[in-house]
């Protein structure tokens, strides 16, 4: 059985939506960060899949994915650093507590 592109794209889309859902609903900042990872990975899958199925002759998508993974790693590192910083003072990483500035 030929596995068509949709079999990859739909899970990636689901992953993306899960990421979004997680971002919006989770209260723990780490969980939010994980959701973000999901979203970024969904993007990565998209790129790879498009490259593999539609444009097999080139590597643009693959390379983009590589860079995206690196960027995601950097983002996570930075975010965790900031979360730790917050934890130090607030003793909590509940995102609802980080709402002092508003309106």
């Amino acid at each position: 059985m030929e596995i068509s592109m949709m079999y990859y794209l739909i899970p990636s889309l689901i992953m993306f939506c899960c990421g979004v859902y997680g971002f919006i609903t989770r209260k723990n900042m780490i969980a939010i960060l994980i959701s973000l990872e999901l979203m970024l990975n969904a993007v990565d899958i998209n790129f790879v899949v498009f490259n593999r199925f539609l444009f097999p002759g080139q590597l643009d998508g693959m390379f983009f994915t590589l860079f995206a993974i690196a960027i995601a790693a950097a983002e996570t590192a930075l975010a965790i650093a900031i979360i730790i910083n917050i934890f130090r003072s607030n003793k909590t990483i509940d995102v609802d507590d980080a709402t002092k500035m508003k309106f």
Partner: protein
Amino acid sequence: MDQTIPLLILALPLCMFLVLGLAGHKMSHKMAGILGTLGMGTALVLAYTTAFTYFFGGNFVDEAGNRLQHIVFNYDWLAFTENLIIRLGFLLDPISAMMLVVITTISFMVHLYSLGYMHGEKGFQRYYAFLSLFSFSMLGLVVATNIFQMYIFWELVGASSFLLIGFYYTKPSAVSASKKAFIVTRFADLGFLIGILILSFYSNTFDFVTMTQAPGNVLASTGGAVFMGGSVLTWALVLIFMGGMGKSAMMPLHIWLPDAMEGPTPVSALIHAATMVVAGVFLVARMFPVYLVEEVALEIVTWVGALTALYAAIVACTQVDIKRVLAFSTISQIAFMVVSLGVARPELHEGVGYMASMFHLFTHAMFKALLFLGAGALIHAVHSNDFTSMGGLRKHMPITHITFLIGCLAIAGIYPFAGFFSKDEILVAAYSNSMMWGIWMTAVAGLTAFYMFRLYYRIFWWNNPDYSKHHHTPHDAPWTMTLPLIILAAVSCVAGFIPFGELVTWNREAYEIHLNYPIAITSVVVALCAIGLATIMYRKENSLPDKVADKVKGLWTAAYHRFYFDELYLFITHKIIFNLVSRPIAWFDRQIIDGTMDMFAEVTNKASEAIKGLQSGRVQSYVLVYLLGALLVGVVTVICMVL
């Protein structure tokens, strides 16, 4: 004619105004008074010279013996379009020459008289400045070469009248009287202005000479245009006449004149009896050939005049304030002139009405000024305007008494006093137009005689009140005041014999005055009867007047309240204009228009408040909005494209 003298006639009072107005407060009273009087005296001499030269110099008559309309000078002042130009000029023709004489004479008399009358008043210099300003304006008005020049001076006359009525500016009644006078005449002037606009739109000229020489041709361009049921020309002429109604206190725009008596009495004599108030008559006379084109307008003029004459005469019978009586008598007499113009037609006795009107204007100016100045002398002596606090004054003030009597006889139309001749001509004109007007005006003439003698008897006879509680008994005024009285009385006696018809006629052809005996005798008889009645009722103190008043109580009260015109106006101005127009508009402006503008600000602020929840501070809601925003932008665009 040389320009210098006419120019000086106008310039002298103007200079006096400027000098007294700007430097008056640095001068002594006496100095200012004498300066003003001398200035006016010079103007008087110059005006007499001019008039004499015009009438008798022989240069101003064409081959057919008609007098010419002579433009002495005419400077462009303000050009609106090629043809519509306001010029300041000096038109010399019979009526303007006559008016020059009248104005300078009365004005000089008043200047002289005021030296005594206003002696010691605060603002004496200001008073003389205003008098000069008035004289200048009035002179400018009568010599106007075009209708707009007339309008200019018309306004100036109104303003100086305003200033003089409000001379005692700390007195609230004087202030409100002056306001009333200005606003009422201003309202009338609005009509005048619109009339000018309409007329000039069609005739494309302001010039009196052009307009009056061939009015038919000039106005041909109206092409019978009709506006709201009347031809535009009728509208124009009626509106212009409305201006005249305002100045000449024709009903229903007369209400300011009785109140205007709040001004110093000499002012009443000058402005509100002899000169300014006849401006309306003069205006119609000036435009007379144009009015002849549209006889409907003249009909309206007649009606207005006739009704006013009757109304004012009735009211005059009931007033107790001597100046008010005189004021209503003025209104009535001016109405005579207006009627006279209204009934004048070229085909009826060669337009005698016009001549009669001008004649009456002339004589009336003299005897009415006389009466007012006499009233001034009385007020000066008794310190009251009310004839109930007078009586029996003939012994105390003989000169005033005699001169006043002459004035009364003149106005009553008794031969050989001036009023007889002019009034007779008016009646001739009225009868020649229609019987109704003749009888009507004869009746009014009778009323005139009645109320004048009522006044006369109440002042000089009636009873002998005790004057000892006054700090001095009444006595004749100083010579500066009596001299004008005597002069004017003399003039009133003889003015009737001036061959007026040879001097002033509508087409400037000489016209032989001849008495129409039936009419003259009727009118004299009516007048004598009225005088007799007045003698019975008022010579001695008695209760007859009160009984009569009780008999016709409704009429009497209504007349005493001047038929409630003032109340009506008060209602219109305060209740309707102020409370129903101005206040709502001001409210509308603040609340609705301004409110709308404020509402924009308010809405902006409210919106700002309403959407503040968007910025909740919760990062999760931020990204939700973000994502929804992105999706919405995309999806809406897609939907729009698909559609």
